[in-house]
């Protein structure tokens, strides 16, 4: 048997290669660098890789190729936009991750053990979170550009495994953090199994693992539709788990709450872009012609997801859980972009993902600032009167919440408008009506937090607002500027997206 060496286009793959290289350097740094120099070196390596990768993405923005890695990945406009969004979101998340206070000194030690105490006392802080982040980002970058099911699965695992670990790294409430990590891992493993099962059925249906092959089989007909349906159903379960859609959402409130807040920010924003990116690509290319089979189900899931997320969020008393349910509701809104299945829907989803991701990181950045002596304060009742204590922080948080609620002049509104109008255009009116109504429900709990912060008198219970480090300030200010700018003057970004947003097949 002849063995031919794979032909790889290194330029087009360079954004991911840079990240993987940076991650490997990070592992070496962790092993050999003296502990005094470690944090700053790790931070520089991580940021350097991310920025370099972003530059590379910018350079290849007009490239189109289906053969960059032997037909396993596809580089096109949406790919560039998704990768760019993931990188920008990762960079501002890394600014938050740079706060060592958030992370356990020694993740391998049992919670409350002597080793842990010893590590804390000697200041022996491990910084493995940086290489883990880079591995996760590399997986996220690969996920939405994969064009066959095997690569897709590899990317899914590359992005998930580091995230499982990162969720367990919290310094405070370590047991909750580890519980979150375990829960995330177990449920993630189940969903991976579903995913693989679906992939097998799709292979059985089309005797191909590439999206093009599946698409051709659908167009050609003749295959066993039962295989196709089972395949789509199980593959969708895996993807819907990652985006946190109802009924596959159960992990997200616990993981959001248990994970260290910087990790939650990163996970909530970047994973969503990657997962929806992959979803958009699969549904818009491989499954586009089998629309009849998945649109009704996805419509129902979208409606349930947004209504459920919005309703349950009302009952939350913890800011991180509230944001988790809000992200579930937003997953529902984003699903309308998948259902739309038109160019407007793709553009709208890409805009929404970017805008929502940036706002999410900004909101979690604020959460990291509100603390007492035992660490972050996430109980909403103790956020009372925040507007009086630190008006700027409270105003920024209010701005992010208003954007989540989709109030005009914020990026959230433009996102909602564009995604709903795309869905309406495709005839999915029920989703639009459900979306509008659940936006009204959602507005209620966002506003309740604003009331707590501004219209309630502060209680003296030791809650204080940390003076943000310069890195955190950059994240907050950047997120705020983007949130407002995309709301007031979104035209340049929309144009940019519109010029690039076409999937090549």
């Amino acid at each position: 048997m002849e063995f031919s060496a794979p032909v790889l286009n290194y330029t087009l793959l360079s954004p991911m290669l840079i990240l993987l290289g940076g991650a490997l350097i990070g592992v070496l740094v962790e092993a050999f660098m003296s502990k005094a120099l470690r944090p700053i070196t790790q931070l520089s390596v991580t940021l350097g890789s991310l920025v370099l990768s972003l530059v590379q993405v910018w350079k290849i923005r007009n490239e189109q190729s289906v053969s960059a890695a032997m037909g396993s990945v596809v580089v096109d406009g949406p790919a560039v936009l998704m990768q760019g969004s993931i990188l920008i979101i990762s960079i501002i998340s890394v600014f938050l991750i740079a706060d060592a206070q958030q992370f356990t000194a020694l993740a391998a030690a049992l919670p409350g053990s002597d080793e842990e105490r010893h590590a804390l006392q000697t200041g022996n802080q491990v910084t493995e979170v940086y290489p883990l982040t880079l591995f996760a980002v590399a997986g996220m970058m690969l996920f939405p550009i994969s064009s066959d099911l095997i690569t897709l699965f590899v990317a899914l695992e590359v992005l998930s495994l580091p995230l499982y670990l990162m969720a367990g790294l919290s310094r405070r409430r370590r047991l909750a953090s580890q519980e979150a990590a375990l829960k995330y891992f177990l449920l993630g493993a189940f969903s991976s199994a579903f995913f693989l099962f679906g992939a097998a059925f799709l292979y059985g249906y089309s005797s191909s693992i590439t999206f093009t092959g599946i698409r051709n089989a659908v167009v050609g007909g003749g295959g066993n539709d039962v295989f196709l349906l089972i395949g789509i159903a199980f593959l969708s379960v895996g993807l819907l788990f990652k985006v946190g859609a109802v009924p596959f959402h159960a992990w997200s409130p616990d993981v959001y709450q248990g994970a260290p807040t910087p990790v939650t920010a990163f996970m909530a924003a970047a994973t969503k872009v990657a997962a929806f990116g992959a979803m958009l690509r699969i549904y818009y290319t491989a499954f586009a012609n089998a629309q009849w089979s998945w649109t009704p189900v996805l419509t129902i899931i979208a409606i349930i997801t947004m209504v459920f997320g919005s309703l349950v969020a009302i009952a939350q008393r913890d800011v991180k859980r509230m944001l988790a349910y809000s992200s579930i509701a937003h997953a529902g809104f984003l699903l309308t972009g998948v259902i739309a299945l038109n160019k407007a829907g793709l553009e709208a989803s890409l805009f929404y993902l970017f805008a929502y991701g940036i706002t999410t990181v900004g909101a979690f950045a604020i959460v990291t600032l509100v603390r007492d002596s035992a660490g972050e304060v996430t109980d909403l009742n103790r956020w009372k009167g925040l507007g009086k204590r630190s008006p700027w922080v409270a105003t920024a948080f209010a701005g992010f919440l208003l954007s989540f609620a989709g109030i005009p002049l914020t990026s959230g509104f433009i996102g909602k408008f564009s995604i709903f109008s795309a869905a309406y255009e495709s005839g999915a009116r029920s989703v639009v009506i459900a979306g509008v109504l659940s936006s009204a429900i959602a507005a209620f709990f966002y506003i309740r937090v604003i009331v707590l912060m501004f219209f309630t008198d502060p209680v003296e219970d030791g809650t204080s607002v940390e003076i943000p480090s310069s890195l955190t300030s950059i994240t907050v200010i950047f997120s705020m500027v983007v949130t407002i700018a995309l709301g007031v003057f979104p035209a340049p970004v929309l144009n940019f997206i519109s010029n690039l947003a076409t999937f090549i097949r």
Partner: protein
Amino acid sequence: MNSLVLLMLLPIIGLIAVAATPKAKEVLSKQVALATTVIVAVATIAMAMNFQRDNVDLQFVEKYSWIPTFGINFAVGVDGLALVLILMSTILAPIVVLSGWNEAHGGRWSVKTFYILILVLETMMIGVFAATDVFLFYVIFEAMLIPVYFLIGGYGTGERSAAAVKFLIYSLFGGLLMLASIIALYVMSGAQGGHTFDLQALAQLEMSSTTQNFLFLGFFIAFAIKAPLWPLHTWLPDAAASATPGTSVLLLGVLDKVGTFGMIRYCLTLFPEASKTFTPLIMVLAVISIVYGAILAIGQKDLKRLIAFTSISHFGFITMGIFAMTSQGHSGATLYMFNHGFSTAALFIVGGWMIARRGSSTIADFGGLQRVTPVMAWSFFLAGMSSLALPGLSSFVSEFLVLVGTFTRYPVHAVIATFGIVLAALYILIPVQKALHGPTTPGNEGLSDLNLREKVAIAPVIAIIIALGFYPSPLLNVINPASAHVIAQMGFTDPAPTNGDK
């Protein structure tokens, strides 16, 4: 200067100036805010002078591309209707600032913030009436809620945060229904020759009557919450009772007019057929509002809530005038919007002074003010008389026009609505009697009468109320062509007046 965009920029410039004043110098912030609002008012009046009365097209049109991807323009322009309402808003603004000189002091935040919010609101008030792009209108319609929310929740009294939330939730809910309709319009425009939000282009869209009915409801419910029409009114009394008098003036006088304005500008223009379909229902709701608002006003013990309920009754009249579909009814409704702005302003402003002096808003706590504070008492009396539409005061003209315009087509409704006038006499005269006449209630002897600032603030309001009562034609000349135009576009002709000698 004939640019609406520049007019919208003026308060922004003033806002920056206010923001730049040092926090300690509160008086300076107030002065800057007052100067800005006066300049805006003068500029608006100057613009209104250049308005061509007989031209029914939009005037002072300006259009800048905003989000070309969606065909959204920053497009503004006014017809007679919009001009009158912008005029009302910008004249009320300096009066609110001057009359409520000290009302920002009890707030959660600084005096400066209060005036920044007021100036933001002023820009949006101009924009919401001037917008000719439906998307722009929606953006301002929703964004306006935020400054009002903070004005009520931050500077109000009593259950202010609950009232602010109620106000915001109601309005957001209505706004989102409208958003669904706007999205539908946008998508349909895309299918019929290119995405646009231009009001006049959207008015040409062809749609099935079912679609039109649904989209109409999306808009109408939003406006009926805003206006507010029974049974969607319950947020208003709470908001008005909790807000400062100045905020209440802007809330009831200007913001709620966006609702009735929107009914004419958007509901009737975009969905003429659906408007006709729903007219019988809306007319009934309007009449219920008139009577219900009046009856509840009679029962109120709190001065601010009383004024709020009188407004619900008045908004019933305005809605009735709009949907009577006659040109008198329309002109009357538009004039009513203007006049209601000033008579409600007078009631809230003078009522606010009384409340601030007495430290209570319960009507029973006042008494015999006529003797103690004659100028204040007379001002309140006059404001009340304007509210009950005494002939010779401005509201009479508009109420009369509305009733005449309604009677020609809906005599039964008009007759029932007339009872609203009788009830109005009760709800105004009872508090006037309790608060102003009779023996001076103990504790009221030491109340001070209006000072110079307050007299200067209330004088223009009273002057306008009296002047337009005797001579409304300057405004009617602007309003009539616009009203006739709308009625003609709807395909209606005024029914011949019924002769008594038939």
